[in-house]
């Protein structure tokens, strides 16, 4: 079978992107935690593996694993403090982390700094890259249908309920984050030994956004989604090259728009069934809001009635039957301390 070198390279890159998208999907799609620094983990793996083979002469396999391990270690360092907190903090922390990694690589000697790291041997080929991608896919299939994967989905769906079911939420999030970082690190090792040259700009924020776009386009939380998203977004820019210079020059602008539009129009992604949920749960939530709204009107109404009644003559006629009858609508019970029950729930939810 003959493939032109051009398509051969495209397939290698696609395989690497599939690994990146699948691994990000574990954190963002399955566990619902937005990470904006996924490319940084790839960079850590790429530089670690590249330096180990080119400077220290280690074997490719060892270097790949070491790259994954190093990325996992950083994943642990970033994840531990931030994953205890709400999702927004992880997003901003990973964003900052990605920048720090990029700047650090730029300022280190062993990485070649702004000149990049040269002299890495070409050891990645399509077979290795494809096997790695299939391996990751297979791992993800197993994980998502396991006790661990279920727990992650539960965390995404409702953290409070997940805790109430005895799930150690932080532990699971951190574990998912570390596994995800490890795979990204291995993808980085493959990347390094395919292109043979590394530059920090390959692992900048924009690269993380590209990977996120793949996951979002394909479908967060599904297995096939990230694969399809990675394939489409690897090939599309090539397709557009020459057709429209404007589009290929301003790719990032379209990725940004893509993220917004997908969330507005099709949050479950192209093929997503896993999270077509984003919509249904939207419905569920709006219903919840409505209920508490009605509840509030009811409470307000009751307290107004009470005030009005107090001015008139109280005529408590106490029968047990009435007690039972009233209890049904005891939503109208008290007004002053609504904070305790109603407000309390909201505290728990936020």
């Amino acid at each position, binding site marked *: 079978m003959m493939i032109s070198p051009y398509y051969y390279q495209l397939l290698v890159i696609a395989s690497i992107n599939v690994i990146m998208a699948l691994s990000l999907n574990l954190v963002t799609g399955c566990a619902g935690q937005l990470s904006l620094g996924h490319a940084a983990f790839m960079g850590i793996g790429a530089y670690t593996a590249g330096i180990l083979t080119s400077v220290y002469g280690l074997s490719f396999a060892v270097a790949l694993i070491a790259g994954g391990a190093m990325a996992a270690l950083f994943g642990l360092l970033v994840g531990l403090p931030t994953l205890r907190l709400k999702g927004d903090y992880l997003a901003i922390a990973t964003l900052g982390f990605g920048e720090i990694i990029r700047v650090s690589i730029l300022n280190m000697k062993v990485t070649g700094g702004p000149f990049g790291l040269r002299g890495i041997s070409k050891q990645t080929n399509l077979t290795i890259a494809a096997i790695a991608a299939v391996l990751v896919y297979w791992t993800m299939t197993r994980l998502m249908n396991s006790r661990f994967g279920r727990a992650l989905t539960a965390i995404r769906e409702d953290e409070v309920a997940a805790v109430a079911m005895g799930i150690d939420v932080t532990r699971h999030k951190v574990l998912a984050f570390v596994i995800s970082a490890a795979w990204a690190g291995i993808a980085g090792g493959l990347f390094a030994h395919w292109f043979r040259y590394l530059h920090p700009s390959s692992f900048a*924020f*924009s690269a993380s956004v590209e990977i*996120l776009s793949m996951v979002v386009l394909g479908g967060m939380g599904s297995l096939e989604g990230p694969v399809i998203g990675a394939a489409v977004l690897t090939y599309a820019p090539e397709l557009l090259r020459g057709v429209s210079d404007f589009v290929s*020059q*301003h790719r990032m602008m379209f990725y940004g728009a893509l*993220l917004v539009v997908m969330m507005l129009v099709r*949050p479950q992604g192209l093929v997503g069934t896993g999270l077509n949920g*984003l919509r249904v749960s939207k419905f569920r939530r709006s219903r919840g809001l409505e209920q508490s709204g009605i509840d509030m009107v009811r409470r307000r109404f009751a307290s107004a009635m009470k005030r009005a009644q107090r001015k008139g003559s109280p005529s408590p006629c106490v029968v047990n039957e009435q007690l039972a009858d009233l209890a049904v609508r005891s939503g109208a019970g008290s007004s002053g301390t609504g904070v305790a029950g109603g407000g309390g729930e909201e505290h728990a939810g936020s």
Partner: protein
Amino acid sequence: MLQQVVNGLTLGSSYALIALGYTMVYGVLRLINFAHGEIYMVGAFIGLMTSQTAGLPFAAAMVVAMAGAALVGVVVEKIAYRPLRKAPRLAVLISAIGMSIFLRNLALALMGPQTRAFPIPFEVKRLNLGRLRINSFDVLILLTSVGLMIALHFLVQKTKIGKAMRAAAEDKETASLMGISVNRVIAFTFAIGSALAAAAGVLIGMNFNAVDPSMGMMPGLKGFTAAVLGGVGSIPGAMLGGILLGMAEVMGIALLKSEWRDAIAFGILALVLLVKPSGILGRNLQEKV
């Protein structure tokens, strides 16, 4: 030492201006507006163009920049956030980050990647008080920031729309039952936050004499850090956080090397998140504005 305090105050008050936008939006929406740094950039560009192309005086350029950025902020909210008001958090976060990337790269496509100089529309004077040197920029930044913060305080505490904002921050549902148009309040919050960010953009763009499409990222992150440090959701917290962060950064640079500048901010962010995620004035969260 005194010099450092002045520098810290100047830097810090501009961070505070950015932090206010984060904190106000967080107050009403419980959302980190990722596009806030880009609004700051847009404000700087509008200010640059009005004073350069239209030749308007500084004060007028500032007003135009603030108004323009406010408009952009409102449009951003309407397109990327409002339709997702009831969607899961993750969807809103992704939409927000998408908006940020879109705006930054739109500016890149329209204005080009080069850094532009900000023509200074007034004569820069330098004042030497012994070893303390203060220039017109320091005075301008400090006065403008403090003026805007006082105006904001008045707006939030005394005006009708300010009270509506506070009510919405407390409890959106009740507020809407009381006849407050929550959508209008949120739009207004974005407008005010964006205008403040634009003011910071113009001031910093002028001070560093540099405006470019990606200028929003770092100040955006630092404004966020300042907001978290002070206690996200708290307006006084954002002011305090901004000043403290500015001070810490200036002191840090004096002690360490200037390459560590950004690392200091992130170090503080990491520390706050680890030790007290609710920030210094975080207890006021119930009085979010």
